[in-house]
């Protein structure tokens, strides 16, 4: 940006008109840029205002009145407290049940493993005793005869 444009902008910053001697010392290109800036600046207010809604703003804070405060204190707060207690108790109950159930499963598993390791009854009962004492176990040795 040229020095003249900088100087011109400094006048605009102070809401002052740019003196003629500065405008005259500008190059053609600087002068065109300056005119565009001025045009934009002068029209901007009109452009914005043509789009503005002139209706006044209405703000309501909706602050609860005394009646609401009493209602809140004597009805809403106790109800909320009771609800929290009920939810808390049911949650506690569920956790306890789960804990008991886990303990039960663990106990059963422990019993089962003890049964497995301390006694061989489980496999004996699955094998037929006749099969163990049958001749199948006392068979004659196999003799291979060669024709050669």
């Amino acid at each position: 940006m040229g020095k003249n444009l900088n100087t011109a902008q400094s006048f605009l910053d102070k809401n002052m008109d740019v003196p003629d001697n500065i405008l005259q010392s500008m190059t053609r290109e600087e002068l065109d840029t300056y005119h565009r800036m001025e045009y934009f600046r002068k029209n901007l207010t009109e452009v914005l205002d043509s789009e503005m809604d002139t209706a006044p703003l209405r703000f309501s804070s909706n602050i609860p009145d005394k009646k609401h405060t009493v209602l809140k204190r004597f009805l809403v707060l106790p109800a909320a407290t009771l609800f929290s207690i009920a939810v808390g108790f049911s949650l506690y109950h569920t956790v306890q049940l789960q804990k008991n159930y886990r303990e039960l499963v663990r106990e059963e598993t422990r019993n089962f493993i003890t049964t497995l390791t301390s006694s061989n009854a489980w496999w004996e009962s699955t094998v037929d005793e006749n099969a163990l004492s049958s001749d199948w176990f006392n068979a004659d040795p196999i003799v291979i005869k060669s024709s050669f």
Partner: protein
Amino acid sequence: MRQMINNLSDDACIKQFQNTGEEEVFNYLLNRHRVTMRRIIYSVLKGSKEDMEDVEQEIALALFKNLPSFSVKSSFTTYLYRISRNKAVDFLRKTDRRRKIINKAALLSSRKPQELPDETLVKKSIHEEIKKVLFQLPEMERTILVLKDVEQLSLSDIGTILHKPVGTVKSRLHRARLHAAERMKAREII
């Protein structure tokens, strides 16, 4: 009541609101500055009128909450403009602006142009072009242009509103004006 408030300065209105909490005083104070507030919001939101109302309500709510603890030693207008700009910027970030703008552009292009008298048409078209130039600029430059060239605030006040040093505001302002001039040249406005 209204007559009484009309004669009060901003500081006196704030004090009265702090003492009594009267909504009428609050609304009066808010409406006294609504034009500037709306200009700032409009330039940040790139002209979306439907979003302006939401932002205005957010600003009013924030102000209503904070005004009881506001110190009258600081400038109320600077404070209000800062809230306005910040709320509008937050809103812009939250919403998917690009999608809305595309939809709006599609709607506008599909509309049949209304018949207007020549002079009004020319003025409207110039306004449209200038609006397009403004909305092409980055948000910070748009806000600085509005605060300086429309509201004629001092560079130091703008610096306070935007949390920027005066030197930065000045250089951004000069750059914004140059950018606007370049875009006007590109669009062959003048």
